[in-house]
């Protein structure tokens, strides 16, 4: 990766800034509302899954109730034919419960996965629509993926089972009311406690516990980072033991807290068991008092036990919901105000060649960039002229502002003052998809996708033919490797280019840039990760492969192979400290000459310097 991870700006309203905890009351509902809005096209499937889930639970409940009825009636030794219906019902219910569960799981997962497909596309569109989305750490990215999963879990583990439990509860009370209103009343009270009061309690307890545990867990995670990433510093200064003791102490404090909190958390589950039993007992008492026939008392009692059991599923649903909230809030914040992705899908590849042909002039006039108010500028009144066909190199130490310059060039960063123009039009006035066709190439964050070599290259120019691919790959020094692969152009590149060596990865990214061949070609450290000999060869062939009318802006920390360029600009601390041709700069004292001599020394052997 780039040796100079310079700070990139945070766009307004990045998802990272979304509140993680302590959502406000209004924010609390908007997250779910956003999810439900997304679920609307799949509402029928979801309702179907919910009904099937209710049918599953109801079949289980009815099975227990019918079986009890059957057994208790049988004790009275009636003629067998009076039991036939019940016997058939028990068989049907037993089989259908399993079948219902199977179909419910299939239907539910199918609906939710369809919706997730939609959510992923929308999240991607929302991210893509941000012009200045800066660098994201791997952590933020994987959190984003698990946030999308939160949407899935909300539906599968909270909404579907929750609504099914509610529906079955209502049906159970209605059924009980047919036999005995008094028993139904007792059942309703039990169900309300199990299905409303206890879930509310569980939510409160989970939230409070999380609030207490989270800071300590965060501190412990920091300790772990300090002890591992700072292991050498700690060891060198004899501070390992003290740091270890502090971390162990914190781990023990966390353990004490977790033990204490578990006592309250599981009190809710204990209450659930109690409510189930007491409800059954109350139903028996109420039914007997109301003079309900004995067989039906048994049906009511067993049915009540089963019904409360079903309602208790709401407790775990409530817990899940509480845990999913932060992720849902982040997704909702990201999707807020997003435009439907379909409107944005315009494939404009056909027009690209028109732009490629013409000559373009790019200008920087007194450009200043500041990442934070009051901080030292990353670029300080930099001026550059890049007419068609001109080739400029920008060099300088790490942190000098080279990457910032590239970011300004591609419109990712806007200058605080000064002007950047392309053909006398301000860069910011170009449409988002228009600029990359003219200005672009190999940027610092060049990413290699988990796809074939061909697909990775075609990203540069969709529809490029075999010859064009070969030419670009040859110029980047990748062609031999591709030819040596059994699958050739269709060789699959691993995750984040994992199966390629660092050098091949870089060559692939360079070949893609050369294939794209924008009229203003930006090459940010094109030979990074290559050994000096290969680097010189690749740079030379890449420059040779660029059409004469195209201008080139080469950003590099290596100073060899720059003799052919029209101008070299030396940046330091955001300012242009030297400019001129290679020959001029080597002749004059200054950073460029020092660095050039030193690099020559490092690469050809130190003794080369001694006369």
């Amino acid at each position, binding site marked *: 990766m780039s040796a100079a991870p310079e700070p990139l700006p945070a766009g307004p309203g990045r998802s990272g800034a979304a509140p993680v905890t302590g959502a406000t009351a209004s924010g609390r509902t908007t997250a779910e509302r956003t999810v439900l809005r997304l679920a609307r096209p799949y509402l029928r499937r979801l309702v179907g899954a919910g009904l099937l889930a209710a049918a599953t639970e109801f079949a289980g409940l009815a099975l227990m109730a019918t079986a009890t009825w059957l057994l*208790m009636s049988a004790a009275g030794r009636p003629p067998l034919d009076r039991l036939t219906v019940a016997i058939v019902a028990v068989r049907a219910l037993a089989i259908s419960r399993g079948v219902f569960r199977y179909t419910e799981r299939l239907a539910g*997962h199918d609906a939710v996965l369809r919706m997730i497909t939609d959510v992923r596309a929308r999240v991607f569109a929302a991210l893509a629509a941000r012009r200045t989305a800066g660098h994201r750490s791997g952590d933020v990215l994987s959190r984003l993926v698990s946030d999308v999963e939160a949407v899935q879990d909300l539906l599968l583990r909270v909404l579907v089972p929750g609504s099914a439990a509610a529906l079955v509860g209502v049906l159970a009370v209605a059924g009980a009311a047919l036999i005995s209103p008094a028993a139904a009343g007792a059942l309703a009270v039990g169900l309300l406690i199990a299905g409303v009061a206890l879930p509310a309690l569980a939510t409160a307890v989970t939230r409070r516990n999380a609030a207490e545990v989270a800071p300590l867990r965060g501190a412990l995670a920091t300790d772990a980072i300090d002890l591992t990433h700072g292991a050498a510093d700690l060891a060198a200064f004899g501070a390992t033991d003290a740091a270890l003791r502090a971390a162990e102490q914190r781990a023990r404090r966390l353990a004490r807290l977790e033990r204490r909190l578990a006592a309250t958390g599981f009190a809710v589950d204990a209450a659930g068991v109690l409510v189930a039993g007491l409800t059954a007992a109350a139903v028996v008492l109420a039914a007997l008092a109301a003079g309900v026939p004995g067989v039906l008392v048994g049906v009511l009692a067993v049915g009540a036990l089963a019904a409360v059991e079903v309602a208790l599923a709401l407790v775990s649903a409530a817990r899940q919901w509480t845990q999913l909230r932060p992720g849902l809030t982040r997704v909702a914040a990201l999707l807020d105000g997003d435009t439907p992705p379909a409107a944005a899908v315009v494939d404009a590849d056909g027009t690209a060649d028109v732009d490629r042909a013409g000559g373009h002039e790019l200008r920087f006039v007194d450009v200043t960039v500041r990442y934070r108010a009051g901080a030292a500028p990353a670029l300080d009144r930099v001026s550059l002229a890049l007419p068609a066909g001109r080739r400029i190199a920008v060099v300088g130490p*790490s942190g000098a502002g080279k990457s910032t310059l590239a970011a300004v060039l591609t419109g990712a960063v806007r200058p605080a003052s000064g002007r950047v123009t392309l053909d006398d039009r301000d860069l910011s006035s170009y449409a988002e998809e228009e600029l990359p066709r003219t200005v672009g190439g190999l940027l610092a964050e060049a*990413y290699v996708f988990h796809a074939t070599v061909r697909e990775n290259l075609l*990203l540069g120019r969709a529809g490029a033919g075999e010859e064009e691919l070969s030419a670009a790959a040859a110029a980047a020094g990748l062609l031999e490797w591709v030819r040596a692969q059994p699958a050739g152009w269709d060789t699959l590149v691993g995750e984040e280019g994992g199966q390629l060596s660092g050098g091949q990865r870089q060559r692939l990214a360079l070949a893609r840039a050369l294939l794209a061949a924008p009229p203003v070609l930006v090459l940010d450290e094109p030979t990074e990760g290559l050994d000096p000999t290969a680097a010189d060869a690749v740079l030379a062939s890449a420059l040779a492969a660029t059409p004469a009318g195209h201008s080139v802006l080469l950003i590099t920390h290596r100073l060899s192979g720059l003799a052919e360029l029209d101008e070299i600009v030396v940046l330091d601390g955001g300012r242009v400290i030297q400019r001129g041709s290679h020959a001029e700069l080597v002749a004059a004292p200054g950073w460029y000459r020092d660095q050039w001599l030193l690099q020559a020394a490092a690469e050809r052997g130190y003794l080369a310097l001694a006369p």
Partner: protein
Amino acid sequence: MNRRPFDPRLLRRVPEARRDLAVLALLGVLAAGLIVAQATTLAAVLATAVDGRLDRPALTGFVATVAARSALVWAQGTISARIAATVKAALRADLLGAVGRHGPGWVAGQRAGQLATLAGRGLDALDAYFTGYLPQLVLSVTVPLAVLARVVFADWSSAVIIALTLPLIPVFGALLGWQAQAATERQWRRLSLLGGHFLDMVAGLPTLRAFGRARAQTEVVRRMADGHRVATMKTLRIAFLSALVLELVATLSVALVAVPVGIRLLGGGLALQTALLVLLLTPEAYLPLRAAGSRFHASMEGLTALNEALTVSAAPAAPRATEGAATPDGRGEIRFESVTVAYERTTALRDVTLTVRPGERIAIIGPSGAGKSTLLGLLLGFVAPTSGRITVDGVDLASADPDAWRRQLAWVPQRAHLFAASLADNIRLGAPDTPPDALADAVRDAALDDVVAGLPDGLETLLGERGHGLSSGQRQRVALARAFLRDAPVVLLDEPTARLDTAAEAVVLDATRRLVAGRTALLVAHRPALLADADRILRIEDGRVTELTPEPTGKVTR
């Protein structure tokens, strides 16, 4: 990997959890007893209720067993959460302790990230395993046994059927593959994580944007996510189908018990209370087995973390010099005698022989990856020679007490780690009792005073993970301040100005010159300015050290 539901290593490694685990097993036995008692009392209540009578003692007994079960559920949850907390704390201490035992050479690189994640949030996945799966696992043993024992007394023929059909659950489970089911579930998670290349696409967004393809790619994301959905549904269908078969096996087994019971009841050969008891108890026998099987996958993540933690902390540490070992004097001569360092795939240093006389300032140059940092690592004791030895003042470093020896060293690394603590504590690393004026001197010597002035809370500003960040130059000056405070006879500097711009470099160079004055110094150098002050220059290439004729600086930059 280890797929056993319970890792016996746990008992050995976390002895303080043994008692709680025993209590958990005992509670599982009690729970099984209470399930039997609840069914027995309920059957009695219902059997008398048929005649419209209320069996008060039975109902009281039923309520009492329910209350006892409720208390038991609480106890089970609390105990299992206690076990989880105890085990996590112990394993965390073990993991982090392993870092101390093995030393920084072992923890470097990718392992640092893995360890930090595992010791941080990774182990929290054990909560699900201990509070969800383990109690269920205990119940899957105790409940079927208790049910069988009770039913034998009530109606032995039903007991025989239960005993014969119970093994069908694990047998069918094995046939259909709980393992396979767990694997598909895991596969599903993994696929979801990839999200049909969703992560890949999001990670590559800057590149897509650079080619003007970001918006056009939305349709591709949708198409791929849809393909992922179809593939996922295929694997899920199989997983759900096997769950269905297991459920039907359990249902049919219950029916096998219930049908003869019903027929005998009709024929008057069985009392209603017994029949009810059998009906209520039989499903309970099959339930915990299925529940444990289906919860297995949910606890996979925890088991994986547990396995990793137990394996990592069990790795044997390199022998360390015992207490009372010799302490070399850093003011003596440092000698490398035919030192070779071989890593797994590369040899970092080959047969290096070298003498550093007290007070010498030695610059080390060479291309990156040539072994310069390894040379410093050897002196710091982070790396041990594969062959050869290093002596300081005649004492072999391998037999010296590393902490006592390191007290003679001040080290300025390429990129110092900023700890999540105040700037003052970051500087006082390893010397927390430094008086304020000594701290102030170090801050001034390291040219850190203007940095301190610019921070919101001065020296008390919090740094690190969630704290205030510092630029490379400022970070380097913090490392220098640490070294000044150390006031050690030997100074090791690893490219102290590597990432700095010219202005910052000048400040750091000045401070570096003040630091090395009057001390033995080895400095890995990149820039000509650093070479100017060196007494000797060593060049490392391909692991071999060559001594260069010291040249006056004028020639170097001419």
